[in-house]
């Protein structure tokens, strides 16, 4: 089915959309029997070099409930200058500007290659981007120094007209006024007292203009820039000031006695940051960038007390309902996240500490607002420094790879309804005729807000086929979905990107093979994984695993070819062949397994899984393993313990980690120093090759992965050993005979055992 692969790839490249099914079952009943829901991964701002934006307003369907955008799928009557909406079939007049339209003189949005098109529109005043740094000062001297340098450096990366602000916190919170000459001025808040937005604005002196606004309009305009200039200043103006200010930042001066954690008021600091932006720049693109080096230890949002003898909550504590502060803290951050999202701002969390920092509680801040979440050991690592730098990376066209305040509006043709979305978004609660009652992910709406997104941000959108079985769709009928994404471009332009896609309907009973062939198992795996991870956030781990297993078994039952109760007869077609393997690795992944992970780590992994595009997601589910040896060119090998051979160098990419693993022999050679001998230059090259490849991955990935260089028997080798399929373990080492590979000391089932069970269950008539 090369054609389908090509089709899928082509669609992805053009529209940034990958559907689990590329031919859609035409009835509701059939669709539910497909097990994997009809869904797609949408990368709304997928980078398209060949997509020059058009400089005019999109033409909308005049039906108030529809308002779909004119697209290549619409029927156009060139003579009457009419077009028919392909979603609601409303006939619409072209606007006057389209008077010259004809078959040969089509506007771009009607051309088939512009199924995705971007409009630049003029709406409202353009406000510069806003970056509000919220910096923890309870750091070790080294860390703080590194962080200060990173922050100073970042100033040069910001657009010159961007507004920047600085809040520092420790025991207290300081909101720095940046426009002062000769004296650095800051407003200080107690870290233990939660303040309402109103109070914050009063205390920062931001509320007075509001009063004046009510009194008389004329005053308002001159006042407006004055307020903003106090705490948020154009970078180019206060560049030097801020650099000095950052340079003079001191560690939190309050004494920390032995056996105590520093008092860290992250909760109130964030609250103030949110309140500040809320009061000054609602509904414009703004990033609150939180840099924290430890858990919040006081005030609202505290995650752990300041006594070092009470450790921060673990999964064990959470299961035992022993995490004292978790619920309250989570609630605090959720409230903040929702407020932030409502204002169209986003919160990034850069947490660098050896211990947990409370990401579990704070995750919603990044998750709901589309902010980044970065976790590292220290600010003084290249992991943080480079990752942070990459936030300000620019795309090919020299524009920042970030966009703000996106509204995603999904429109479907009548046979489809929208069940929900999973990704860094919140619901806008737009109920409409195309909203399904069944929710998958964030449902009950056809519109979502993505406060911050970049070209790789990917949402999973789930649909429901609502066409009844007894109302067949005519042969060749197509279902359509339109994604309308309005957002603030990094150049502060308002843009609208419209993607309209259509897929064929097929009757699942008569044309199952078409549907089967058009199955996108990669997309399906990721979509199912997102559902699973989404559930795992609220449900018990084992329940989610059982649910996943059941889905897999049902899928195999539906699409496998087998004889009842004969596991050996089980076969899956090519388009499904990899799917069980994905599920196997997904079950073992940190997204669903919390064992060996702290709650923070789990939150971190899940955060990234819920926003990355298909390729990256797949890497996360099933890491990629490359082998380097003298036997041939580098090759991808099975993620299996049998791939671990003494004369190989392995390179594993799990998205979060890059592991280079030297096999036993190679490691010995290296120790013997052969690589330094001229006659063994080829060995030197062999050693170098994976390093180069790793560099390439490191260069492009956000967040930067943890780079691990290890060898056979090294302690860090566990990163590799925990990921590979344990085909050889201490249990079966000798049973399998002296085959090559490394045994893994685990009781986990191997892929082979998993498949055997799967087959058995799939063919079982009892199931």
């Amino acid at each position, binding site marked *: 089915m090369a054609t389908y692969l090509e089709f899928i790839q082509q669609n992805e490249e053009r529209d940034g959309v990958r559907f689990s099914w590329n031919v859609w079952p035409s009835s509701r009943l059939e669709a539910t029997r497909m097990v994997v829901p009809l869904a797609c991964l949408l990368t709304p701002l997928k980078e398209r070099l060949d997509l020059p934006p058009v400089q005019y307003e999109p033409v909308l369907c005049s039906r108030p409930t529809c308002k779909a955008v004119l697209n290549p799928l619409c029927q156009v009557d060139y003579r009457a200058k009419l077009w028919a909406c392909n979603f609601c079939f409303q006939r619409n007049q072209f606007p006057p500007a389209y008077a010259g339209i004809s078959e040969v003189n089509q506007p771009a949005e009607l051309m088939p290659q512009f199924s995705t098109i971007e409009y630049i529109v003029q709406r409202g005043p353009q406000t510069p981007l806003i970056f509000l740094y919220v910096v923890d000062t309870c750091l070790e001297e080294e860390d703080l120094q590194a962080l200060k340098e990173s922050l100073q450096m970042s100033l040069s990366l910001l657009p010159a007209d961007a507004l920047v602000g600085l809040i520092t916190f420790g025991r*207290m919170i*300081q909101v720095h006024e940046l426009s*002062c000459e000769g004296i650095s*001025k800051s407003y*200080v808040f107690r870290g233990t*007292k939660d303040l309402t937005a109103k109070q914050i604005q009063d*205390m920062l*002196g931001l509320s007075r203009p509001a009063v004046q606004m009510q009194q008389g309009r004329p005053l308002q305009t001159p006042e407006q820039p004055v307020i903003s200039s106090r705490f948020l200043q154009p970078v180019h103006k206060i560049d030097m000031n801020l650099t000095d200010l950052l340079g003079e930042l001191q560690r939190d*001066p309050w004494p920390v006695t032995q056996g105590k954690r520093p008092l860290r008021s992250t909760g109130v600091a964030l609250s103030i940051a949110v309140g500040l932006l809320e009061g000054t720049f609602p509904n414009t693109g703004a990033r609150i960038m939180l840099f924290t080096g430890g858990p919040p230890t006081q005030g609202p949002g505290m995650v752990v007390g300041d006594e070092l003898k009470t450790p921060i909550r673990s999964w064990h504590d959470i299961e035992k309902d022993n995490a004292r502060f978790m619920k309250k803290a989570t609630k605090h951050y959720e409230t903040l996240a929702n407020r932030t999202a409502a204002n169209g701002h986003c919160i990034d969390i850069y947490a660098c500490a050896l211990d947990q920092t409370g990401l579990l509680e704070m995750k919603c801040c990044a998750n709901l607002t589309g902010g980044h979440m970065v976790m590292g050991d220290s600010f003084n690592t290249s992991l943080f420094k480079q990752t942070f730098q990459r936030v300000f990376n620019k795309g090919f066209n020299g524009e920042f790879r970030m966009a703000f305040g996106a509204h995603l509006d999904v429109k479907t043709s009548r046979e489809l309804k929208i069940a929900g979305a999973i990704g860094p978004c919140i619901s806008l609660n737009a109920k409409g005729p195309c909203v399904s009652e069944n929710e998958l992910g964030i449902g009950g709406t056809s519109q979502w807000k993505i406060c911050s997104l970049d070209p790789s941000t990917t949402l999973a959108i789930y649909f429901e086929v609502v066409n009844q079985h007894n109302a067949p769709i005519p042969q060749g009928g197509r279902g359509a979905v339109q994604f309308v994404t309005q957002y603030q471009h990094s150049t502060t332009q308002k843009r609208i990107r419209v993607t309209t896609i259509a897929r064929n309907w097929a009757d699942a009973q008569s044309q199952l093979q078409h549907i089967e062939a058009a199955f996108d198992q990669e997309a399906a795996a990721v979509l199912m994984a997102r559902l699973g991870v989404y559930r795992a956030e609220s449900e018990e781990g084992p329940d989610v695993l059982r649910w996943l297993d059941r889905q897999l078994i049902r899928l195999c039952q539906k699409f496998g070819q087998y004889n009842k109760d004969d596991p050996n007869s089980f076969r899956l077609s090519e388009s499904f062949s990899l799917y069980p393997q994905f599920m196997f690795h997904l079950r073992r992944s940190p997204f669903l397994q919390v064992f060996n992970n702290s709650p923070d780590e789990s939150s971190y992994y899940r955060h990234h899984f819920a926003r990355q595009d298909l390729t990256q997601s797949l890497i996360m589910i099933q890491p990629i393993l490359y082998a380097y040896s003298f036997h041939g060119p580098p090759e991808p090998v099975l993620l299996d313990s049998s791939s671990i051979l003494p004369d190989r160098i392995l390179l594993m990419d799990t998205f979060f980690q890059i592991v280079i693993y030297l096999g036993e022999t190679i490691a010995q050679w290296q120790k013997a120093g052969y690589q330094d001998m001229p006659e063994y230059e080829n060995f030197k090259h062999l050693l170098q090759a994976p390093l180069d490849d790793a560099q390439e991955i490191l260069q492009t990935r956000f967040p930067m992965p943890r780079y691990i260089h290890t060898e056979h028997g090294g302690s860090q080798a566990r990163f590799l050993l925990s990921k590979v399929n344990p085909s050889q373990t201490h249990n079966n080492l000798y049973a399998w005979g002296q085959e090559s590979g490394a045994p893994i000391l685990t009781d986990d089932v191997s892929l082979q055992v998993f498949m055997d069970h799967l087959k058995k269950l799939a063919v079982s008539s009892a199931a």
Partner: protein
Amino acid sequence: MSQQGYVAAPPYSQSQPGIGGFGPPSSSLHYGHYGDPNSSYSAPQPGVSKSTVPFGSSAPVGPPPAGTQFSQTSFQNGPGAPGQQPHRFQGPPPPSNTGPSYPPYSHQSQPAFPNTASTSSTAQLADQLSSMQINNYGPGTIPSPHVSPGHPASLQGPRLPPPTQQQISLPPGSQLPPPPASNVNGLGAQPSLPPMARPGGIPGPVSPNPNLQQLPGQPPGPGYHPQQANYGPPMAGSQLSYPGAFPGGPAQLSGAFPGGPAQLSGPPQKKLDPDSIPSPIQVIENDKAARGGQIYATNTRGQVPPLVTTDCVIQDQGHASPRYIRCTTYCFPCSPATSDMARQARIPLAAVVQPFATVPPNETPLYLVNHGETGPIRCNRCKAYMCPFMQFIEGGRRYQCGFCSCINDVPQFFFQHLDHMGRRMDQYERPELSLGSYEYVATLDYCRNKKPPNPPAYIFMIDVSYRNIKSGLVKLICDELKTLLDKLPREEQEESSAIRVGFVTYNKVLHFFNVKSSLAQPQMMVVTDVAEVFVPLLDGFLVDFEESRSVVTNLLDQIPELFADTNESETIFAPVIQAGMEALKAAECAGKLFIFHSSLPTAEAPGKLRNRDDKKLLGTDKEKTLFQPQGNCYEALARDCVANGCCVNLFLFPNQYVDVASMGLVTMYTGGTLYKYNNFQLDADRSQFLRDLRKDVEKRTGFDATMRVRTSTGFRATDFFGAMYMNNTTDVEMAAIDCDKAVTVEFKHDDKLNEDTGALIQCAVLYTSISGQRRVRIHNIGLNCSSQLADVYRTCETDALINFFAKSAFKAILSQPLKAVRDILMSQTAHMLACYKKNCASPATVSQLILPDTMKVLPVYMNCLLKSCVLLGRPETPTDDRVYQRQLVMAMGVADTQLFFYPLLLPLHSLDLKSDAVPAAIRCAEERLSEAGAFLLANGLHMFLWLGASVSPELIQGLFNVPSFAHIRAEATSLPDLDNPFSKKLKRILEQIQSQKPHTMKLMIVKQQEQPEMIFRQFLVEDKSVYGGASYVDFLFCIHKEISQLLS
């Protein structure tokens, strides 16, 4: 123990500079001069053998006969009754005894005066006048509570004691020259009491009257006897009823007495010669003449020190210097049980303690005793500190506490053998055994949390609201601080001050400043959460000025500009104090806040105040509420401040009512000082303010202080008045106490006092020094006890009495109607005097007003107190001013209250340019002014330069450099610096007056007949006040009437 300081001390080095210690030879020699009688009189030590030594060496100073005579007495009486010797010896044969003993002394000051005169130490006023006035006005005039219907009876009484009776009418007690003082101190050079006794009787150069100020009464009958003319112009009668208004006014005093029965029906024209009534000036001058410039050694229990107005050198020889403690009487009545004597007398037993009083450079500073880790030695039972009152027994192994009589073991390290007289060999090497005042280094047990204290900190908190910026005040303060901070107080041996400084500005939010030395520029931290104020930074807020000089200077340069375009007019206040207190708390140190504030704090915050000034409350029972704070916020805050050693100095710059009663409360309780500059004008008031600020910053202060007053058995301290706070009934807590603050302590009997042991008082102040050392400052004083009322009266000190009365009255107005307070004062005065008359004066004087010599000026001072604006509210006086004055007086020492209630009035036109001396003051009455004269009036708060309409042009030229009276600009608040002797001299005088007063007086130039003269006149306290308040003479009548009533 700080031997070094001890060696350097004047009194000891004076006698034996080379020896550097308290070797027995030096002390005996030394005491030969000053201390001899001490040994013979004080305590039960046998002074017999000792007394032989001094006489040889004492010869040059005093007349030998006196000394001999006295020492004989002591021989005769022996050690058995040392304390009472003077009386016993002199008492029984008054005239004859005085005779011989007196002349040697009198010849020095009043050589020409006859012997009889010297005995007339009582001022008497016949009551004819008052009775006659009643005749005149009787029921017809304003009925006064003091005019009792029974009074006419007293008319009969004053059977005109002829002038010759004067001697006879003297109370025997007062005739006694107090030999101990004179003998002991100056051997004739300092006849301390006798001169006091004399002035009343001796006509001074200004007084035309003979020695007795006796106004002979009239013969019975309705008429007014012309005889009166003999005794000077009598007073207008209706003024009798204190404090009722009298239409006549003081001006009438100058008229001649017309005499004749016509007065009966006509308007009051009778005059009393003002010179005939006791003159405070006379009393002051006499004391000055007698004791000024001399050495006063405190070696005798119960001796009466020179007046506060007298300049002399004080030597501590076992009792605290009067600079530290002054008592209302130096002889306590033995017991209320014996004769109801104390109760009857109603003489308040009180001490005014000014523990940190400044001593002039020619007096020894306090020695610092350091016992290392053991800490101060204290009595096990009453915890009194080791002092000269402890008696060593059993060969020096034990000592008996002089306060509670408990026998304690002498600690090993402290042991010393006793000499043949039972005194420790090292008595004169140890300040705690030989001095009245000294300091102990305290151990950790005396520290907060048992941790050594940090050096204190000063926090400057500047109101930067619109008004202060516009008036230029903020800039003024900032500019001044730049230089002022170099002058922070430091210990003598230190190179720089240990005091750290911090800065806060505020309007309705607070701005803290980080001025850490490592910063390139200061950092400002705004705290807007005024409801729950907190300190936003720890490190860098309180800094060493030396280290952070550049940052601080930078900050001070910037503050005025930072707020230059502010339009914030609302301010907060309580959170400001709170913030300062929290900052000190966080830094774990005590300290002072300097708050510069201008307006009523109306911003929404704790301690928000509303304008509740209400003139309608004057004279009602609710008037007292004006003196009470609004709400309890400030009281709670004050408590916290005291608990954390945070003293609040408040500089107010109000344009209108700012509720000083509320805002000043914390200042009051924390031992701070309140300064108020009404309608502050940069040009006119800057020098006054800056001087105050400088003085306050440089002031030597003890921080985080607790004072405890211990007494010997039989009496105890019952009440305390001052700028302090009390959590319980015994510990006086002061966040800080500076050299100008005095606490007045009232004592009450709870048992009979022993004449032998006397009444001992030990006042210990535990405090943190400016360098952060914890110390105990101890002042000991011993008073006599007597069962003779006369002894009590004879040792009274009017200045201290007035201090006590003022403070107790000013405290009472918080809880009682002002009228009741005034009545109490009146009746107490009357009681005191009546009791004297009844018990100590001869019966023949029954109808006369007889004043004990030591209380001769009590009526005039009391009248001043009664008509002070605090006690007598008038719509013209702003409430804030009354509250302000009340607060100031509460903290004042004796010298300050004396000047405050009876201002100093100096004639300037007759300056003797050749001498350095300040001209003699004149009485505060308008009739003393002359059109051709210029006068300077000062009361410690205000200063006036009054210029008569026809003052000589030369004088004007000399002072103002303008040709004539008309050219003088009355708005000026300072005199130009002119290069002529007159101007220079005047400047010197101004400086001299100013230098001793805690508050800087703003000079007001008053030209006769111009509007500001009204203000000036209020300070002519002997006159009838324009705003009510009786004249001196009226008051005398009034009091006399009261006395008569009491006695009848």
